[in-house]
């Protein structure tokens, strides 16, 4: 529902300098943490490096040209695929969980919400190492399967694309659950009853009423999972064993790894950022067009 916003008179009552003064903290924060880093990256991306990996400030488009090398395009495509798979799996897993949480009685809601957030209490790296302990050749899962004679030899679970996706899904699932829960919780139960009343079975009422009305939550969840998943490097490093490098690994490698080519890393990051900004801008424009 849109609430018509009246043009406010309030801001006109403050003198101009005072308004700027009130905005100053926000402006300082934005410059320090958003604008400045982006500018540094931008400047780097047009620079060169010397033999020691130091940045030499010139103006070249060489870095951008290199980014479109098939090697990097395939890495980019793989990242896109992994992130998409992660997002899709998260959405499928998150919906029932979020829905059950929204349907639960209030005291249970809070408890379930806490359960979803408990993983955040331990370091992300520790949790990833825990998965390694479970999945490695002599790990817990293989041990259990061998012990029960389900398998004869240890399965190769770790350092596979599956392991990377598993790690990504595990890391980002709560970021999908929470926004969907937020939308589902606001859904009037009478709407679902109305759908049943008008002849919808459980699936139809989900497709025709629940899904459309929780779409904002799903969209927010997709953004919150897809964007970090595509840039993730730690999980692909640890659980993929550097066999399946993602774009995040390539960029990381340029800055702190062996490649030591900060200008090229910066160029990859800028391209990346531009893609996201464009996608977000288009998405936002569509959302606005729908409201209008």
């Amino acid at each position, binding site marked *: 529902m849109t609430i018509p916003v009246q043009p406010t008179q309030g801001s006109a009552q403050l003198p101009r300098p005072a308004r700027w003064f009130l905005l100053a903290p926000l402006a300082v924060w934005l410059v320090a943490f958003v604008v400045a880093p982006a500018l540094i990256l931008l400047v780097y991306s047009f620079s060169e490096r010397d033999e020691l990996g130091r940045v030499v400030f010139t103006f070249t488009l060489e870095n951008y040209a290199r980014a479109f090398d098939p090697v990097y395009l395939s890495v980019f495509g793989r990242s896109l695929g992994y992130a998409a798979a992660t997002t899709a799996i998260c959405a499928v897993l998150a919906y029932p969980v979020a829905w059950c949480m929204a349907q639960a009685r209030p005291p249970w809601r809070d408890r379930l919400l806490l359960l979803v957030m408990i993983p955040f209490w331990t370091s992300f790296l520790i949790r990833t190492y825990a998965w390694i302990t479970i999945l490695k050749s002599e790990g817990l899962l293989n041990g259990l399967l061998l012990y029960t004679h389900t398998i004869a030899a240890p399965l190769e679970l770790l350092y596979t694309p599956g392991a990377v996706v598993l790690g990504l899904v595990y890391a980002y699932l709560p970021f999908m659950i929470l926004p969907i829960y937020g939308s589902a919780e606001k859904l*009037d139960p*009478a709407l679902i*009853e*109305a*759908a*049943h*009343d*008008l002849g*919808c079975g459980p699936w139809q*009422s989900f497709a025709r009423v629940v899904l459309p009305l929780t779409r904002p939550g799903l969209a927010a969840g997709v953004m919150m999972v897809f964007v970090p998943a595509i840039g993730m490097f730690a999980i692909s490093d640890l659980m993929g064993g550097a066999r399946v490098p993602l774009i995040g690994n390539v960029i990381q490698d340029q800055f702190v790894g062996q490649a030591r080519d900060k200008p090229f890393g910066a160029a990859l990051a800028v391209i990346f950022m531009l893609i996201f900004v464009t996608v977000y801008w288009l998405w936002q424009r569509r959302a606005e067009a729908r409201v209008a």
Partner: protein
Amino acid sequence: MSATVELRGVAKRFGAVVAVDDVSLTVQAGEFLTLLGPSGCGKTTLLRMIAGFETPDRGAVLISGADVTHTPSHRRDVNQVFQSYALFPHLSVRGNIAFGLRMQRLAAGEVEQRVAEMLAVVALEGCEERKPHELSGGQRQRVALARALAPRPAVLLLDEPLSALDARLRQTMQLELKRLQRRVGTTFVLVTHDQAEALAMSDRVALVHRGRIEQVGTAAEIYDRPATAFAAEFIGQANVLEAEFIGRGAGGVDLRVNGVGELRVAAAAWLGDAPRARIVIRPERIRLEATQPAKGMRNAFPARVEEKIFQGAQDRLTLVTPGGLRLVATAANAGTGEGSLRVGDSVWCAVYPEDVVILRQPASGEAGRRAQEIPGGPGSAEPGYETGGRASAQGAS
């Protein structure tokens, strides 16, 4: 006439709370029946059982003769108008009205035609493309009606459909709803706590109290012949008095009412051999005279005006008899001239024998329990006052 909805001894409890307790009710085809009762009486649970949102613990629900007790709501030939309307916010008026039709897999042309038909019925032509949030409260209500009627259900259920509207619009919608029901001929079952709404619209009223049906009948039947003290007090205002049987006379029975004296009551039969019962006299059936009626006239007694409340067309009076009994009566607004009663004036009250209703001994429920609590000794004028006072409070709300 055939039964469209039949409840057979249905019961439902939520935890320790008995919401519905052994209710049987039949709604005839084409009838407008109202489930009337205070909040928490179980009327909404009854409606939800018909809709299929609740399954009764015991008993059966039949719709058009078929047992649907365990049929989910989407397979029942029933549609509901929700209290909050529950219009789908992401769909236009057209999308909302067409929703049920699309679920019935009607052809697109047929859907279009029915939507147009329903829009005409609820006078919303031209609003097809609007979203629910762009409509006024009254318009949303009409969309909800159209959406529920479009699939042509055997029964239309209405859960307090007018409660969200302001008083003026509510009265208009009452008439509209009644007219609509006559026009489409669908069986309507409406739930409300508003007695005025029930009286204005229904063919029959089922009065629900504490999970049971207290009385079923036309509004006039319940008003003129209430079966229980609750029925008498919930619909309109009532003086509920304790009476003692003293004998039979010509055309009725003679009772003694504390604070009033002897009353002859036109009754075909007394309640078995019970020595006491409760009677109801409606305030407007107490006829007020300035002077004493002819000597020897029965059912006349003096009283004093203790309180007078202006209500527009009439004044509501609280009268006190010399015996200390308080009664509520009404007097037509006679202006400020002669004949208008003032506080402190003495009046004579007269009651026709046929205007007194003897309540059947309540079998259970609040009325029964209250009757037992009332001390039976002489001089206990308090019960009559108490119930009268409560009745006026309800009438004023």
